[in-house]
Every structure is written in structure tokens, then in C-alpha cells.
């Protein structure tokens, strides 16, 4: 059977394979390489930088620098200089423990390949949570984080006149970017109140630089006389073929909609309610998970400096809890050093000096996460006929019916309705469904884990998996008993 699976020839044994080339993974690779380890750095994008420090498309290289593009350029330059074996446009689809080390199966240029490594550093980042609202699947609606990818890659605003609605600092960043790129922001709408922000001042003071930058976004928006609706949310999207306007409503302290609504015209809407750690790769490698609302939801169980209970697996960055880019850089360095230590390098002193900086940055990041994480009332924005699972076009009513007849887990809802069996793999619906079950059954979210991840982590063409097949090599088994 082994004859058949080897598209890769005898693979080189890598010391440290880093998955994800954002602030966490990029710095993990750099730290490990400084200790002389043979490091390979994989990422889905062409160039390192991750979502937050995404490289600009070549058509817009002359565009002015932002703090994100500068940080990304610095990371990219360091990775080039350190001669790290960076492989872009590479997606991992399966991780398998072997007697010694790990096989990581990847898809690159339409071909599958097997990489073999002694240790793994997984820095898989986060994805966005959007609480489904009526009309959110109309063309012209973007995720908040999704919109930032658009800006960074090709410098285009999402439309002519955009409403930006969501939680935490990202809503202000997105609005100020749209202004900078020449778009018009019709309104900024955020469930957070000014008082929520004031309450976070002590944590903001941990990173005055970052706090000031955020404050400037808000100042600029106010100077541009863009209305900011605090303690409010967009509650529905109107329009025949695409976004034409959005309804806005005041929220109560629990973020449930309350009172009158009003409408604002716009041709586009950016909507987002915080980030969720992407934990599927750690789960496939055997790391257990726990629910931590302060970290953004379900997170892999990690110890100091990114170590896990699975030997040879280290985790870092937002994939272990949403602490933000500043913390992710330091966490990545710590995890890279831990992995190097595991392979014999002496890194304890270096890690000890970094830990307090990481903790400071993490406290700042976690304050932002606390502002970004939805409060339970936000689930009321989803109405009975709102689509919750986009891949299978399932409404909240359909999911509610299933839960009412006893489907009391995300897995049971998935099996019964296919919610989470589509191409997105449940990325967009599982959190909303888990929260719905929790609310409906009056159980804590911590009792309703996401359904078990299944490979491939990303869809893989059959043709790639079946390359190199020779029918005559088919191992004919002993016939089944008659």
C-alpha cells in the first residue's frame, strides 16, 4: 500500500514545520531558524504575512505604506534573509502521526505532496464570526475581516457607500480604511458603547501605541462627520438583487435588539462579530480543546510557550485564542523557541525574557477580544427565516425544528440537516448553531463542542489524490468471507 501513497519520493526530514506564515508562524520560523534548525514554513497565500500583514497585489505595489504593510514587509524581508524554506500557495489537508515525527500532506500547484517533520508548529490563525441577520447573504455584504483582505490585496473599497457594522476595534479600522481608499462610509454601527471602551482603558494603557492608533481611527471618522451609532447593530439588509439599504436598531445591555429601527441607504455592508480561533489542524494532530469565552470560543489546550500534551506539537497565535497580532508575534517566537528546545537547543533564558512582553500584549489583545465577542442577545438578530447555513440554505426555523426534536449537538444537527457538510466545512454556521442549541436548551456553550474536524482540511481534487496510480499496483486483499 505504501507504494501507492508516495507521490513524494523519500521526503527530507524537516526539523520544524511551521503551518501558517502570519505574525505567529512567521516569527516561530525565524526563532527556530536562529537556533540552526531546518525550518519549512507553509502558507496558503503566495507570500508570508497572514491575514493581517497580507502582501499587496503586484498591481498596487506603489500604494502608500500602512502599519500593517510595513510590518508585513519587515517580516517578509527577515524570512528571505534567514533563508527559511518558505512555500507559499500551499494548503495542508491532512496531518498524520508517525512512529517518529509527523507526515503533513499538502496540496500545491494542483499536486499532493507528503512532508515529514520531527516537530510541528501550527499557527493557523482565526476566521470571522458573523451572526446571521435577514439579508446577510445578498451580494454587497462582506465580512469585516474579509473586507480588510480586499483592501490589502487590491486597495478597493467594498462599494461606493458602505455601512460598517460590528464589534470591537475592527469596525473602526475597516471604516477608516474605506475612507482612506476613497470610499464613503454611510455609518459606523457598533454594539459596543462608549462606556464599554472606557471600561477597557486600564488594559488599553498596556499598549499605548496601539490604543492611540485606534483612537485616531475614531477621531478621523468624527472629523469626516461620519455618524457612529454606539450600542446599535444593523439588524437586516434590504434590497432586491443586492444591498440597497440596511435597518439599524438599538441594542440592550445584553445586545438583544430593542426599540425602534431606522434605515440607511448604502450599496454595501461590512458585518462582523469577532474572530474565532481556527482549531481544525491542531485537532487533527490530536490536541484536545476547551471552551474559553475570553479567548474567543473553543481553543486548543496549550501549556507554556505554545507546548501541548501531544509530543512534538506546538501552537501559537490567534489559533490558540484571539490575542491579536502584537501578542501573536511574541507567541510565535516563544513557540518557535520551544520547538527548537524540544530538538536540543537551549532557549529557556530567551523565552523567560520574552514572556512578560507577551503577557502584556496578550492583556491588550484580550481586552479587544472581550469587546469583540458577541453577548448572548446578539443571537436574537437571527430571525426564523434567516439563512444560517449558507452551503445548504438552511434557515433558523429548520435548525430550530431539528433541535426541538432532540438534536442536541452540532454533530446531530450536521447529520440530520447537512449543516456543516458543505464546502465551507461548517466554518460559517457551526458557532451560530452551537449558540442556538445552548440558548434553546439552556446549557452552557462549553457543553456544545464543534463537530469533529474531518480531512481534508480544504477540498482536494480527486485527480491530485489519484495521481501516480497504476491499476496493477492495487493490493488485492484476501476475499471477504463468502
Amino acid at each position, binding site marked *: 500500500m505504501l507504494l501507492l501513497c508516495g507521490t513524494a519520493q523519500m521526503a527530507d526530514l524537516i526539523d520544524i514545520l511551521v503551518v501558517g506564515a502570519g505574525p505567529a508562524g512567521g516569527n516561530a520560523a525565524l526563532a527556530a531558524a536562529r537556533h540552526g534548525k531546518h525550518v519549512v514554513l507553509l502558507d496558503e497565500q503566495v507570500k508570508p504575512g497572514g491575514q493581517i500583514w497580507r502582501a499587496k497585489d503586484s498591481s498596487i505595489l506603489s500604494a502608500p505604506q500602512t502599519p500593517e504593510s510595513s510590518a508585513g514587509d519587515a517580516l517578509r524581508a527577515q524570512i528571505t534573509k534567514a533563508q527559511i524554506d518558505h512555500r507559499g500557495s500551499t494548503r495542508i489537508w491532512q496531518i498524520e502521526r508517525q512512529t517518529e515525527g509527523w507526515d503533513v500532506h499538502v496540496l500545491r500547484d494542483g499536486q499532493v505532496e507528503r512532508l515529514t517533520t520531527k516537530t510541528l508548529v501550527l499557527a493557523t490563525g482565526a476566521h470571522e464570526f458573523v451572526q446571521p441577520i435577514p439579508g446577510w447573504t445578498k451580494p454587497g455584504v462582506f465580512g469585516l475581516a474579509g473586507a480588510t483582505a480586499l483592501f490589502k490585496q487590491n486597495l478597493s473599497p467594498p462599494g461606493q457607500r458602505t455601512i460598517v457594522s460590528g464589534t470591537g476595534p475592527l469596525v473602526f479600522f475597516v471604516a477608516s480604511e474605506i475612507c482612506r481608499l476613497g470610499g464613503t462610509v454611510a455609518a459606523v454601527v457598533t454594539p459596543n458603547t462608549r462606556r464599554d471602551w472606557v471600561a477597557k482603558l486600564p488594559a488599553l494603557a498596556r499598549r499605548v501605541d496601539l490604543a492611540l492608533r485606534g483612537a485616531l481611527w475614531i477621531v478621523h471618522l468624527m472629523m469626516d462627520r461620519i455618524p457612529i451609532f454606539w450600542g446599535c447593530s444593523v439588524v437586516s439588509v434590504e434590497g432586491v438583487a443586492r444591498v440597497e439599504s440596511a435597518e439599524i436598531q438599538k441594542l440592550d445591555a445584553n445586545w438583544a435588539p430593542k426599540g425602534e429601527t431606522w434605515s440607511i441607504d448604502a450599496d454595501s455592508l461590512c458585518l462582523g462579530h469577532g474572530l474565532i480561533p481556527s482549531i481544525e489542524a491542531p485537532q487533527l494532530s490530536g490536541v484536545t480543546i476547551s471552551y474559553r469565552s475570553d479567548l474567543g470560543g473553543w481553543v486548543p489546550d496549550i501549556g507554556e510557550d505554545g507546548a501541548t500534551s501531544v509530543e512534538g506539537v506546538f501552537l501559537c497565535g490567534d489559533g490558540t485564542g484571539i490575542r491579536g497580532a502584537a501578542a501573536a508575534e511574541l507567541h510565535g517566537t516563544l513557540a518557535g523557541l520551544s520547538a527548537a528546545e524540544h530538538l536540543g537547543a537551549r532557549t529557556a533564558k530567551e523565552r523567560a525574557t520574552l514572556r512578560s512582553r507577551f503577557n502584556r500584549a496578550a492583556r491588550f489583545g484580550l481586552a479587544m477580544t472581550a469587546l469583540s465577542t458577541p453577548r448572548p442577545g446578539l443571537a436574537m438578530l437571527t430571525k426564523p427565516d434567516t439563512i444560517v447555513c449558507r452551503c445548504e440554505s438552511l434557515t433558523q426555523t429548520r435548525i430550530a425544528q431539528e433541535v426541538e426534536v432532540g438534536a442536541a449537538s452540532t454533530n446531530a444537527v450536521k447529520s440530520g440537516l447537512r449543516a456543516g457538510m458543505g464546502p465551507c466545512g461548517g466554518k460559517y454556521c457551526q458557532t451560530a448553531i452551537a449558540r442556538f442549541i445552548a440558548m434553546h436548551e439552556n446549557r452552557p456553550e462549553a457543553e456544545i463542542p464543534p463537530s469533529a474536524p474531518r480531512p481534508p482540511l480544504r477540498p482536494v481534487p480527486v485527480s491530485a*489524490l489519484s495521481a501516480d496510480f497504476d491499476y496493477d499496483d492495487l493490493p488485492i486483499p484476501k476475499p471477504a468471507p463468502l
Partner: protein
Amino acid sequence: MTARYDIAVIGGGIMGCATALRMAEGGMRATVLDQGDLGQGASGVNAGTLSLQIKRVKLMPYALKGHHEWKAMGDAVGFRKTGGYTLAFTERESELLHERQTLKAEAGAPIEFVSNNHIRNAEPNLTQKVISASYCPEDGYANSSLTGQYYRGRLRDQGIPYRERCPVTAIAQDGAGFALDTPQGEITASRILMATGAWLKPTAAMLDVDLPVNARINTVSVTERLKPLTSTVIGHATGLLTMKQKTNGTVLIGGGWQGRGTPQEGRGQVTAGSLQPNLALAQFALPALENARIIRSWTGFEANVPDFYPLVGALPGVEGAFVLGCVRGGYTIGPYISKLMGDFILDREPELPLFDPGRNFKED
């Protein structure tokens, strides 16, 4: 503590649930306990093939009855009777196919051999490399993902209490029956039925009975939605491939390729080394799959004992304890053989013979 049940069924798959339903019909107060959700073990993750062509000769009468059960469940379980072809691509496979399918036809399965022209007309997208094929009009499939939903509904309709996320951690015998430790409290019952599939060995071990149960770790994969490519259930003479396109356009691919892991560790794992040749064989049989993407692959545990016949009857040495499992082709046969199990516990004469779990196992 709840009132004593007439019987506690450990394991909420097809066999546990269907037996509970039969016993409740017969007047027993039954309850069903599952360590996870109902129907999420082998019952819910197998490829859903309902094919007489891959059933054992001696089990054919049970499989024929099983097909009737699935047909009766109908749309609620995604049942489709499509007919099915088993393909041979080499002379050796062709010989194997003729020898085996002839015996199965003699055992009562309406299997016939078809010409190459016939198969090209019926399934024009299959490879032209087929050299011989058998056909069974009774074959088809059901949607195993719906097992949990279906039986949960049936149990609720019949007022049979069930508990999910309720693993049994210890079994004690008291004067009047059994006391089961669970995280949801102690449950007492006059009798117990073990229907825990690949977990039968540790379940029976709680009563110091050693059942020689092993588990195969079968891999199943599904593609994204595709335009109509095939309308029947496709198999391979070696058993290394099962394939069917569902009404939603996805193609489900199995064939018993082995993943790894053990029931005790939880779910099994897909290995690239098994997955790749499995999919390569699928693409060989149905070349249009080269343009498809695989969305998901997973494994399920198929339990068996050394003679590959079922365990259906009394647990040896323990009065009032019963065991049901290790049915080769358990998805197809499960709903029927559960009725036999229920009848036996109800002290009725089963329609067909059971398979004594206390027999002397010898390698087949």
C-alpha cells in the same frame, strides 16, 4: 434514581434502537443509553450501501429481509432502490466475480450477469475497461447520516426514554437485575442488551465476559456536488470500491480501505496511504471524477468476531444479559436482525435462527 426498567439497551445505533422499539411493541419498558449521540457510530458514518452482492451467503435470507425494512423506512432514511453493478476489470477479477455471485444468486439474491453493452447503456460514464459485471435490481442505498434523526424520532414517538452523552462506566448485578453507572446517575434494569458495535469488547468486559471482537476501520469519502454521472450503486469484484451518487449530486466513495486507531481511543483516523488508492480506484471506474473535489473523508469502526458471523443472543454466563452486534453487512441487516433479537428477549420464537454469542469461534 429512576424506576427499574425491564431492559436497558447500551448503545443507540440501529441495532440498539430497533431492538428497543421491538421490545417496547412487545410491552417491555425499555431505555436506550448512548455514550454520544444516537446513531453516530458505524450506523451513522458507513457508506449506506444496501447491496445483496456484498452479503455473505449464509446471511442472504437476513439481508433480503433487511432490504424490506429499509424500503419500509423509505424517504425518512433516504432510501433509494437504484439497482447495483459489480465490476471486474481483469480476468482474475472476472473469475472471482462469477464464482462468488453465482453462490449468492443460489442463496436467493436476484443477481444476474450482464453484457458490456448493457452496462455501457445503463452507466455510460463508467470506464470502458469493464470486462464483466453482475447486476442486482434489489440493490440501492440509504443515507446513514439520517440514522440518528430517524431513530430519535421513532423512540420519541413510542415514548421510549433515551439518554445521549451517557456512557455506561460500570455494570453491577444485583438480586433483581443490573445497576448501570453513568454520568447521568445510576440506571437499573431487570435485563440489559449490549449493542455497542465496535465497543462490545469493553462493554462485555464490565461483566467479566471476554468477547473476541475486533474492529475494522473503514474509510469513506464524499465529493462536492456534481452533475449527474451515475444512477446506480457501483461495486468492484474485490470489494475495494463502493460508489453511489446521491440525489444532491455528491458522490460517496467507500470500499473498506483501512484507516487507523482503535474504538477505545475514540474515532479512527483517515490515512493518506489508504485514501489515495481508494480514490484512484474510484476515478479509474468513473473517469469524470477527475474534475471533482473531495470535501470530506472519515472512518467508521466495523466490528467482527473471528468467524465473521453475528453475535445475536444471550451473553454467555450472565443471566438476563444479551448481546447484538458484529453483523457483517450490519447496516443492511441491522433493522431486521434487531427484530429477531427483540423477539428472543420477549421469549418469542424468532423467525430465523440467531447466532449464539457463546459459540466456539474459529477462523473461517
